């Protein structure tokens, strides 16, 4: 007993680097998610969805129903839509799920600031996005028939997708912090996510009207889709489409600001 405690008691003068808590938590969560297979299962499903989408697009491209550039835009939009969903549900379960499994309290009892805990979990929940994006590359390359437009599509897909992934993961964590039940937090996140997909269902005539343009400019998912269409498919310069990058950027900034400057400090054992 005393030997172990003596070792534990050494603080000052200890050799070796102390690793920041956010990194430890990120590493632990990421290892659990990836080595445990959860993320890989999500990505496998994601790949199935992308395969079906790509096949459909390629068929329509051969049928001349849709142009090559339009099919590339749909593929990149699908990457973003499917890919950020993974981070959203992982983030939505990250705090409320730990509450349910009674594993949150030991974390809160460490001297680490709560912000570090949230940061570590945030980064872990974000980790599937780069993998999802990289997985989309072969589909985009194939659909574009290696046309140089694929670089433009991949670039904007990376920029917009990363912005939205950060926003959605952050939103998932926000909901999770304030929810006692992962069922509720998952549901709320999916409701918001589905709500943001609604404009895509609206008729084309409306989307091209002033009202539709306003809705597209405000809805970050629709904004991203619009920007990709204008820049990649229609070949317009960014100066004509810049307004559609505002919504994703603002949403990301607001969510991350709220998460790290307000909510993270208020993580409690029970959602009050």
């Amino acid at each position, binding site marked *: *007993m*005393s*030997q*172990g*405690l*003596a*070792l*534990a*008691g*050494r*603080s000052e003068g*200890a*050799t*070796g*680097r*102390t*690793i920041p*808590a956010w990194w*430890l*938590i990120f590493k*632990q969560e990421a290892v*659990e998610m990836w*080595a*445990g297979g959860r993320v890989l299962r999500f990505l496998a499903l994601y790949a199935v969805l992308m395969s079906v989408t790509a096949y459909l697009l390629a068929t329509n491209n051969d049928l001349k129903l849709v142009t090559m550039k339009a099919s590339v835009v749909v593929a990149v939009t699908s990457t973003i839509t499917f890919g950020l969903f993974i981070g959203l549900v992982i983030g939505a379960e990250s705090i409320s799920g730990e509450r349910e*499994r*009674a*594993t949150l*309290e*030991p*974390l*809160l*009892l*460490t*001297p*680490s*600031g709560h912000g570090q805990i949230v940061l570590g979990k945030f980064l872990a929940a974000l980790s599937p996005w780069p993998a999802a994006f990289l997985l989309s590359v072969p589909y985009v390359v194939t659909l574009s028939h290696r046309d140089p437009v694929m670089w433009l599509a991949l670039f904007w897909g990376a920029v917009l997708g990363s912005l939205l992934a950060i926003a959605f993961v952050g939103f998932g964590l926000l909901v999770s912090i304030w929810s006692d039940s992962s069922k509720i937090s998952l549901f709320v996140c999916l409701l918001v996510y589905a709500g943001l997909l609604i404009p895509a269902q609206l008729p084309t005539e409306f989307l091209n009207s002033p009202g539709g343009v306003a809705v597209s400019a405000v809805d970050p998912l629709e904004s991203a889709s619009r920007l990709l269409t204008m820049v990649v498919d229609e070949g317009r310069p960014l100066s004509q489409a810049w307004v559609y990058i505002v919504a994703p950027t603002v949403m990301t900034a607001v969510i991350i600001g709220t998460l790290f400057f307000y909510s993270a400090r208020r993580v*409690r*054992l029970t959602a009050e």
Partner: protein
Amino acid sequence: MNDVPDPRANGSTEILAAEDLRKTYGDRTALKGLTFSLNAGRVLGFLGPNGAGKTTSIRILTTILRPTSGRFTVDGISSDHPEAIRRRIGVLPEGLGFPKQMTAFGYLTYFTQLYGRPVGEARRVATVLLEDVGLQNRAHSSIGSFSHGMRQRLGIARALVNDPAVVFLDEPTLGLDPRGQRELLRLVQRIAKERNKGVVLCSHLLSEIEGVCDDVVIMNAGSVVARGSVAEVVGATRPELDHVVRIRVPVASIARTQELLEVFPGVEGDVRSEDSTGWLDVKLHAANGSGPDESRVRNDLLESLIRADVPVLGFDVGGGRLEDVFLRLTAEAIR
């Protein structure tokens, strides 16, 4: 941490002190003024029925909850510095969950690192703590394969990774078999005595707590109903239970045993019996310096019953027991 004064530097051993802690939720008061202190090297028992406020108290003292009013200090650090306090405490919460996929070694290493230890040192601490709690053979097994008792031991090991000044254990023996309970309580004593730590132990197992705790706080409905060392609490609360022995005989033998006992020298007053269980309460005369001491009287009494062929099914020095004190105090409070 370095700028917080060490109270033990000037010889004080007070490791934990609470002053009038209160917690309200709306119009419901969960804690109505908790005041106590604990010295290093002692075990404090937090006792009380369900809903008494024990867990609320522990959560406040471990900085999980903020009190509505009142203050406390841990190792000289005031409650205004929760992060500093968390460096000096270890906690085993009730119903703690564990990540099933992690190994015990990985789990302890992880938490040791979270307390600021470099990875090499964290690994060494984890190895030795696992040995201390008897889990060295399962260090690299996943926690999901552990029994409940093993998880509790792992939880205690985790509470010790930072060599805390005060260790809080909330219902640590819940769900353990008698042997597991005994082993765990022995471990608790060693934590306090060998390393001069303060241990706060919440439990329902009064008979075991009595053997482990030095001090006790009995709570009921958010209020403290008794506080002090075990002997002080028992003596102050139920003086009339001093000098009482309890004897159990078959129900058919109650009447005869009563007759024998009531005329036995050293027995005071009538012998009360519980007809359904066969227990008899026998009050002995208080020792006054000139007669035989009480232990001698007890021995003689037992011998006389045996000689009279009374089947003695149980013999207990009753009254001076924490369980009786607890039941009486909490029943009174309920009434």
